């Protein structure tokens, strides 16, 4: 059978997202959220449960910082009364603080302002957008999820999203990894070669905060100290739908 025909074998496999909801995207365990208040424990706090310090207890309020959470599930297994999975892939946010659940006070206003500002910058990108990926110290799984966007299930070309080899043609820098010191210069050079306006996406927990890889002598603890980040994507690694959400958010094609 020639390849053209093989290509038709499974019928339409491509998602209709964002035009229509996608059940896989909606069911994906994308974040962990607190279900209750900070319990009084003797000696140990619930914060100690978490390997990356994603759990915070400020003033009796229990919060999970999705920008640090590596989705290991330990808190959910050990304290199902306090933590639970939240399904859904629309997890990208416009500020680092907005990755904290439940939301920190004043986050909303800050996000609204940024949204307007980003929309003004990206007015040109509504129809087609070129993305340059840069690995700044990933564990390698992030690249698989980025590449998945090109498979027939996500097929981002249908949305006018293209990956480009040259930063000179890029509208978006999609950066993975914790920010290894050895990538500081190459990342800076790539940014410099990219025309303005440019939107920078921190793809995954490692890029957002360094995840479990930080702190360490060789990584920056996230890329935000290396360049200005516009869109933050949690996940370890971020799922393809979360990355797609980030790209649509970055280009103002969906609002939240």
């Amino acid at each position, binding site marked *: 059978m020639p390849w053209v025909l093989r290509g038709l074998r499974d019928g339409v496999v491509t998602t209709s997202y964002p035009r229509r909801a996608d059940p896989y995207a909606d069911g994906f365990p994308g974040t962990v959220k607190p279900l209750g208040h900070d319990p009084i424990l003797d000696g140990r706090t619930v914060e100690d449960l978490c390997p990356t310090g994603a759990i915070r207890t400020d003033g009796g309020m229990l919060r999970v910082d999705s920008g640090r959470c590596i989705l*290991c*599930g330990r808190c959910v297994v050990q304290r199902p009364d306090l933590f639970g999975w939240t399904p859904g892939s629309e997890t990208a946010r416009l500020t680092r603080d907005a990755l904290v659940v439940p939301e920190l006070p004043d986050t909303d206003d800050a996000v609204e302002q940024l949204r307007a500002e980003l929309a003004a910058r990206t007015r040109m990108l509504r129809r087609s957008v070129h993305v340059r990926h840069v*690995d700044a110290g990933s564990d390698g799984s992030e690249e698989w999820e980025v590449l998945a966007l090109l498979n027939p*299930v996500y097929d981002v070309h249908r949305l006018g999203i293209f990956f480009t080899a040259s930063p000179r043609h890029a509208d978006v820098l999609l950066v993975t990894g914790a920010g290894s*010191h050895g990538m500081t210069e190459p990342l800076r050079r790539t940014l410099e070669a990219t025309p303005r306006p440019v939107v920078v996406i921190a793809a995954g927990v490692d890029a957002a905060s360094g995840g479990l890889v930080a702190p360490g002598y060789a990584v920056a603890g996230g890329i935000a100290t290396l360049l200005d980040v516009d869109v933050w994507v949690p996940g370890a690694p971020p799922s393809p739908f979360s990355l797609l959400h980030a790209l649509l958010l970055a280009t103002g094609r969906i609002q939240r």
Partner: protein
Amino acid sequence: MSVSVLRWPGTEQVTALAEELDQRIAGGQRFAALLGRGNPATGTVLSALVAHDGGVTPLSAQLPAGVTHYPSLTPQLPAAFWYERLIHDLVGLVPDGHPRLDPLVLPHREGGELPHPGAAGRPARIEPDERALPVEVHGPGLFTIPHGPVRSGVFESVEYLVETPGEDIPHVRIRPHAKHRGLQKRFEGLDVDDGVLLAERVEGVASVAHALAFAHAVERRAPLPQAAGLVRALHAECERIANHLDVLGKLADAAGLAVAAARFGLHKERVLRLVGALCGSRFGRGVVVPGGVSGLPRLPADAVSNELDRLQRGIDGDVRALCDTPSFLDRVRTTGPLAPDLAAAHGALGPVGRGSGCADDARVTRPYDAYRWLAPPLVPVRRAGDAQARMQVRIAEIETSFHLAHHAVGDLADCDTDTLATELELSAGRSVGWAEAPQGEVVYLLEIGADGRICYCAPRSASLHNLVLFPATFVGDILTDFPFNEASFGLSIAGVVM
């Protein structure tokens, strides 16, 4: 002999280590790694790992405080070439007589601060010092074309230098250091439950295999519940299938077969979705815990079996079509040959080794977990050593993996699943763990301190061990062969530089 002791005082144990390695290799054992720990100011240890039927044995040589130089092992044991560079970068020991002691993971100059894995102290920040990199020579007819570290396409960061010295065959040099993450040091001080999570991130596309090798080192062969062994095998085989599909897709893509690449991309997506449905993570993360597994598959057995069947049917057809596409075969046949004698001398791992006659597979010769009774067969080796041979090995492995995954699901339905993990008694000491990753055998050398926390952890991925062979496989037109050769090696840079 006496001369070498004079020239390198305090290194008698290194000489003894080299002799024992010699004997063991002559006796058919395989050199698997050379790792270093400590600080020359306070004393260092060199550890060689040797793989053989039934296990991986660590052999160590202590170097007293103040000893900074030792006689290089590489002249006698070329497979130590990269390991001695790595040790030089992290520990600061200088192997005298090493043929090319260029930086590998952390460029630094004499006197610069180093991480010193396994030694006290935790440097806050070490910048790679690019001045330590060799100066590129330019001259009439001599060109160096750099590719990377930011590459064209969605790739991990790595720099390839293509040197074209006059009329000679061009040479590829690899500079992977840009994404060094300092993971060895990061392991130190973690407890083993956090350690296994970090192991999953050493080489993210082989999360399960790394978690297994780490957990095996912690467990020191303590018996595990049968169900835990089966869940582990199921995930390890799904990971292998996904990785091999990734390679097939990249090969097809390199040949410009857009539909074939899309088909393999679709299959791979389905495998990752199956894994996600089994455990919540598309990469099987969080499944392996020291002592067992964190949970049972979240799908009923027949649902898993049906999905495995559907996947296998789809993949089979596309694999056959790929192997029937002459324009494709022309591109992989004879491309990137790795000579069987070089592969054997180096102890090449995984599909790279098996494409060049090296059969060893940790699941078979050093079985662990459910492989002890699932008893997988050795995948038939190929000897051509080219990209096609490596691909054929992967195709055969996909079939074996489906078989093993089915078997594991079936057994799991029949076995006691009340207990999924054993309580481990952690005691201080050193141990080795191993697992067969899709890229080949992963080995961990681990030491637990008196406080039950990790005081030293050295992961050794198959990607690190195999990548050094990559430059040796270019014979024709570098630029056209490169994508095929790179894809057929199927390695991850994250796992190389850690």
